């Protein structure tokens, strides 16, 4: 087990290196640091002299990938790629290019709790609600209830998330005046701001999740052991809620664990519409401002979380299914 995990972690290094190279290549393949400097310095009265100053100050005066003026190690280390992108491997995110001197690591740390404050309740609430409904649907399989629920699920999946947000804000906040339209606050005061985004998140996940869990349950119900259990005279409730649920948890768990990176990376649209200062918004802002420092950090963070989640999925397999062995 331990050796397996170590091997997977080592395997992550080339992946992360690849991620760094892709992002670096896309941002600096065509654009030069000069363009970046001008974009950041604004355009009203900027001169080449100032662009050079800026590059000098922010360490962008170095060559991109290799430095022919240096000998030995400096050939690789005195370059933008090494000094900016390779630092990420020790989780040193450096400083933002546009927001003068703002530490990206601090910013990420301060935003993660905000994202989690919204995504974890969504995650848990939707897990319970969706499991509950999917079990009801599985229980009534083949009836009109099942069919209409399936249709409702597909219907809900077919609506863009944007409409849920607009609808919820209009009805709950504007017309019924039950919760604030948007905003955020510290501590427990944030609860009233989170009710609406959580509700929207729940609605958005409902269709897809219920439909998926339903198929998982049905697959399980059709298996031999369930038939045996029924033949033994066990009640339908016990079959469904005790045996099938337990076994169906394997695929559901994998599905859920894969979603973990998204918990931390936040939800872009929800954060934006409800003014929640989370990581999703940070990413979008950085894209808009072409802040390469933040973009590469977020890409790196995203991939790390993804790789970690994959490892967790494998481990969770062994935990729920003893037949699976990691080699």
């Amino acid at each position: 087990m331990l050796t397996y995990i170590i091997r997977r972690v080592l395997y992550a290094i080339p992946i992360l290196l690849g991620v760094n190279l892709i992002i670096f290549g896309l941002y600096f393949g065509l654009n030069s640091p000069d363009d970046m400097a001008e974009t950041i310095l604004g355009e009203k009265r900027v001169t080449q002299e100032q662009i050079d100053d800026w590059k000098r100050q922010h360490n962008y005066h170095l060559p991109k990938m290799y430095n022919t003026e240096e000998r030995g190690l400096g050939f690789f280390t005195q370059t933008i790629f090494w000094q900016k992108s390779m630092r990420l491997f020790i989780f040193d995110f450096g400083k933002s290019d546009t927001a003068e001197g703002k530490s990206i690591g601090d910013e990420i740390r301060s935003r993660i709790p905000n994202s989690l404050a919204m995504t974890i309740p969504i995650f848990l609430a939707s897990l319970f609600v969706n499991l509950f409904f999917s079990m009801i649907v599985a229980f009534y399989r083949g009836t009109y209830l099942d069919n209409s629920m399936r249709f409702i699920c597909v219907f809900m999946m077919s609506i863009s998330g944007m409409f849920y947000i607009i609808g919820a804000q209009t009805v709950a906040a504007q017309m019924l005046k039950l919760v604030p339209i948007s905003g955020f606050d510290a501590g427990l005061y944030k609860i009233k701001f989170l009710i609406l985004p959580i509700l929207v998140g729940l609605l958005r996940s409902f269709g897809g999740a219920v439909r998926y869990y339903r198929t998982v349950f049905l697959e399980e119900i059709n298996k031999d052991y369930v038939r045996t259990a029924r033949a033994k005279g066990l009640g339908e409730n016990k079959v469904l809620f005790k045996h099938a649920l337990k076994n169906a948890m394997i695929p559901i768990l994998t599905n859920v664990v894969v979603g973990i990176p998204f918990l931390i990376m936040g939800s872009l649209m929800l954060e934006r519409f409800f003014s929640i200062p989370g990581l999703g918004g940070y990413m979008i802002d950085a894209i808009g401002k072409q802040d390469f420092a933040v973009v590469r950090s977020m890409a790196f963070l995203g991939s790390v979380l993804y790789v970690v989640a994959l490892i967790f999925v494998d481990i969770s397999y062994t935990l729920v299914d003893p037949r699976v062995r990691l080699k």
Partner: protein
Amino acid sequence: MKWTTRLNAAVLIALALICGCSNNPYRSGETEEQTYFSSFSRAPEKLDPARSYWMHESAIIDQVYEAAFEYHFLNRPYEIVPLTTESIPKPIYYDKKGKLLKRKDPAPEKIGRVEYVIKVKPGIMYHDHPCFAKDKQGEPIYANVTLADIKGYDLPNDFECKGTRELEARDYVLQIKRLADPSISCPIYSTIKNYMIGFEELHDTYAKMFEDERAKRKKAAGASYNQEKDEQENPFIVDYLGPEFEGAQVLDKYTYKISLNAKYPQILYWMCMHFFVPMPIEALEFHCQAAMIEKHIVLNRCPVGTGPYVLTRFKPNEVMELRRNPNYHDDFYPSEGNPGDREAGYLDDAGKRLPMIERQVYRMERESMSRWRKFLLGYYDSSGVASDVFDSAINMQMGSEAMLSDEMKDKGIKLLTSVSPDLTYTQFNMLDDVVGGYSEEQCKLRQAMSIAIDHNEYLDIFMNSRGVLGQGPIPPGLFGYRDGKEGTNPYISKWDPVRERHVRKSIEYAEQLMVEAGYPNGRKPDGTPLTVHYDHSSSGDPGFRAQFKWMHRRLQLIGIELKERGTDLTRYRQKRQKGNWQIMRNGWVADYPDPENFLFLFYGPNSRVKTGGPNSTNYDREEYNVLFKEMESMQNGPERQAAIDKMMKIVQHDAPSIWDLHPVSFQLFHSWYKNNKPHNMSSNLVKYQRIDPELRRQMQLKWNKAILLPVYLLIALGLLAIVPAAITIYRRDRGL
């Protein structure tokens, strides 16, 4: 027993949650104080007065720092009045040999040196700040702090020990020296260096100092040297006191002197802006410590000044809070203004001590829809700093009453409008073969396009008529702008006496111009339509699509085919740098209320391609350039007006750009928010304003009664649905 109590508790909590439902985004009691609530949509990034050049950042900076002068709150046209100084200094002229010139207004070519001597009022104190805190020996308390010392602090205001100090002349000089610091990248560096004596040399001195120090450090560290990391741990201390600087000198404790190499009356306008605020050396020493940088307690986040407010909370992605500065110097509400101000109630608070509002809270609001709704519900006192978000909501007609919807009128919402000193213009690249050039035919093509793209229609469709059709580069309200009929651009516009506004000439005339330009019916000599490209970087802007389609439709009237070329911002700038574009749309916001600030957009030597200047059309006409040099340093008067008129005729004929419009800026605010007069130059206005918290509380309660019935219905429905399901499950289990 046990589960029943639990159930009871749960029901009680749920009831409390439901009944306590309210859409009030603030904590209870918060709105009952003298607090001003507003919103912002862009996070401020640089609060360092030497670095920032954005409106949304000035809104904070200008309230904490104070420049030597400010604009009068009520008087129009804009008038400069002393703020921290005794008076407005008069320029002292010297000739090329250094001899004092006696004449009041000597010719610019005779002048070799101009000096301004500025006297600071004694007794003005900085707000309480830890950088001034001293121990018993008189040493600063927070001199060599470690991370452990400042644990838990986020802003200087959180520190335990604070002190203050009197404002001195040296603080102003220090800040001017900072403008030359290459590590600061001051946005107006290139302008100042043309005028201030010794400014460029100072920059080079600093730059060399940086270079030497870095080379030394790199050599010591070898191949593993990482400049960024190293400078974060061992910051450079720039020696601002060291190098001699002729441009700005301290004469005595309260007096300093600024020396320019030419006549440049606009310097006073610059000195109203936050680039020329005082900067205490203590603050620099305080913030330039490794631990402070590590915790990001730096000048970019922590303004320190003599202004009416202190920044007490700064989470640029969530909330910003300012509180009244208890040390604020004597400053009183003006007791006279323009005619009509008294009737409008602007003088009700005359003579009162400023500031009146205790606290300001700004909340981040990304989506304009949420912001707008919150404003309507009374949770924001005004429509915010950048008010153009509400473009679509307000309809107004020039010369008539602004149109507020009935709902807004019922709520007592007020609207203020004023033509802002901005120019929106559609530029032609004068270096381009098709749309550029100075021949009569090429000028006619541009005139024809200017007529076809009728911005009166644009104003109606896109801006609800909130704007003035442009006739030339100078916006209304500035010296040199000609109002009414005599201001009409004779080549493309005419005066409509009925509606008292400029209108574009007819499409038939534009077609005639197209024939004369050599494109009859919009066709090139080979019979294909003339195609021009619109270069832009706003592919992602939702409003852009409609604007482009509208322009396309308008140009089709004279047979021209408009194509878009959208790129990201970086490449858009590259195109402009290289002159590799045809049509672009841009805006220019006045830095200061002087026509020079707009006319220099067409001054040849300012060409973007040739010198990287702000003249992005690359327009270069000899007569215009000569006139510009003359006009630049003139005092406002008939002579200057004549020169401006001549210049206007030249650019109007050559039409290096379409003079789109001058937008009308507006602000909406609730009835409890007093003393709002539109002011387009200053961001330090909250100090004049006042809130009626009682009225606000009543209105907020009145407008926001929660409607709970649907919730109960929903719960009932849910219960109804669950009961039969539960029964079935129960039955099936029993095999019934």
